[in-house]
C-alpha cells in the first residue's frame, strides 16, 4: 500500500515538473544548469581519455594521407596568399572610406573559448554542453560559433557549464539572409541535419548553392555569420547544409556581441567568418 502511494506521488511530481517547466521555463532551466554544473567535472574527466584515444587512432589513419594533404595545402596556401593581399587592399580602402565618412565603429564583441564536454544525443533535442559558464562570463543568448560558422546559441548558463541549443534543434529560429540576393528568411530547425528556410517573401528565388548567413534582425546575432549552403529547393521546402558538423565540434567560441568589452576583435571576426 505504501508503495502505491509512493508511486502516485512520484508520477504526480513528474507531471508537476512538466507543468512548471512549461509555465516557468526560466526556473527549470536554472535547475538544469545546476545539475549540469555538478556533472560537468565528471564529464570533463571522462571525455579526456576518449578524445586522446581518438587522436591516436586518427593520427595513424592520416599518416598515409599526409603527402597528398601537403600537396593540396600548398595549393590552398597560394590561393590564400592571393586572398590575403586582396583583403589588405580592401582593409586599407575600407579604412580610408570610413575616415571619409567619419564612421564610428560599433562595440567589438568579446568571446570565450570553451570545450564541448557533453553531446547529449537522442532523437528529441539537439543541444550540447560546454565547459564555460557564468564564472567565465557566458550569458544566456550569446552566439556560439566555430571557425566553420554558427553553431547555435546559449540556452542555459550554469556557473561552470552552459547548454548550447544547436541551430538544428526543433526550437531554433534564426533570422537569416541569402548572401547574394539579400532575401530574408527564418531558418527553422526540425531536429534533422538540415534546417529549413521559412517565411520567405513572396516571389523570392532561392537556388541550391546559395550561401546563407545571419541577417542580424531580431537582435540575437550580428549580421553576416555564415551558416550554410542551400542544398535542395523543392515542394517540401528549402533545406540547407550547415557548415558546422556537430560531431566535429571540439571547441567553440561563445561570443557576446552585446558587450562593450574590448577584446581581440580581429580574430573573432575572422573566426566567425563575419563579413563586415
Amino acid at each position, binding site marked *: 500500500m505504501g*508503495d502505491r502511494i*509512493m*508511486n502516485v506521488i*512520484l*508520477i504526480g*511530481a*513528474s*507531471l*508537476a*515538473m*512538466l507543468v*512548471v*517547466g*512549461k509555465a516557468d521555463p526560466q526556473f*527549470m532551466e536554472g*535547475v*538544469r544548469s545546476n*545539475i*549540469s554544473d555538478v*556533472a560537468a567535472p*565528471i*564529464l570533463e574527466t*571522462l*571525455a579526456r581519455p*576518449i*578524445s586522446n584515444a*581518438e587522436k591516436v587512432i586518427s593520427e595513424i589513419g592520416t599518416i598515409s594521407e599526409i603527402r597528398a594533404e601537403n600537396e593540396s595545402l600548398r595549393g590552398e596556401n597560394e590561393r590564400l596568399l592571393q586572398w590575403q593581399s586582396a583583403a589588405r587592399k580592401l582593409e586599407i580602402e575600407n579604412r580610408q572610406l570610413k575616415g571619409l565618412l567619419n564612421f564610428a565603429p560599433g562595440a567589438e564583441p568579446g568571446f570565450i573559448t570553451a570545450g*564541448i*564536454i*557533453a*553531446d*547529449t*544525443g*537522442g*532523437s*528529441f*533535442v539537439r*543541444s*550540447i*554542453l560546454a565547459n564555460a559558464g557564468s564564472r567565465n562570463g557566458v550569458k544566456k543568448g550569446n552566439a556560439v560559433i566555430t571557425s566553420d560558422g554558427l553553431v547555435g546559441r546559449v540556452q542555459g548558463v550554469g556557473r561552470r557549464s552552459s*547548454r548550447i541549443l544547436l541551430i538544428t534543434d*526543433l*526550437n531554433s529560429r534564426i533570422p537569416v539572409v541569402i548572401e547574394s540576393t539579400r532575401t530574408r528568411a527564418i531558418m527553422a530547425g*526540425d*531536429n*534533422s*541535419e538540415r534546417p529549413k528556410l521559412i517565411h520567405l517573401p513572396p516571389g523570392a528565388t532561392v537556388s541550391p548553392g546559395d550561401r546563407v548567413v545571419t541577417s542580424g534582425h531580431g537582435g540575437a546575432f550580428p549580421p553576416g555569420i555564415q551558416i550554410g549552403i542551400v542544398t535542395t529547393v523543392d515542394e517540401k521546402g528549402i533545406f540547407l547544409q550547415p557548415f558546422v*558538423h*556537430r*560531431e*566535429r*565540434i*571540439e571547441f567553440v567560441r561563445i561570443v557576446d556581441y552585446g558587450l562593450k568589452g574590448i577584446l581581440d576583435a580581429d580574430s573573432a571576426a575572422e573566426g566567425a567568418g563575419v563579413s563586415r
Partner: protein
Amino acid sequence: MKSGFLQPLDLVARNITPFIITMLLIIISAIPTRIPEFSYIAPVLPLMAIYHWSIYRPDLLPAWAVFALGILQDALVGTPFGVSSLVFLAVHLVVLSQQVFFTGKSFAVVWIGFSMVSAAAFIMTWILVSIYFGQSTGLLGVFFQYLVTLGSFPVLTWILMVWQQKMLPQE
C-alpha cells in the same frame, strides 16, 4: 570475508551499485563520441539498466531512485523535466507488474519483453516531448534510436548480469 564490523558497510556499498551504475550510464551517454550522426541514434543505456534491475533486483532500485535517475537524464539530455521520470517510472512499474511472467524466463523472452517495453517507452517519450513543444520532434530518428537500443541490449545486459552475480549479495 571482511571482519564483522565492516560487513554491513560492505553490504550497503554493494547494494547501492545498481543505482550508481545506472547513474554512470546516464553520464557516459553524454560523453561526446565525435562519430558522425551517432549522437542522434545512441542507445538509451539507462532504459536498459532500469528494465534489468526492475526484473531482477527491484529491491535495490526502488521507484524513488528511478524517479531521481529520470531527473538526471532530463537534465543532461535536455528533454523537458518530468519526461524521463515518467517514462522510467512507467517501465519500472510495468515490469514490476509482470514479475511473475519474467521469473525464470530465458534471455530471449527477456529481450522480446524489452522490445515491447522499450517501444512503448520511446513512443511515450515522443508523445510527451511533442506535446510539450507543440510540434512533432520527428519519428524517424526515434525509430532508429529504438533499433540501436534494442540491438545493444544483450551486451549491456550481459555486463549487468555478470555484476549482479559476482558483486551483489543474493536475495
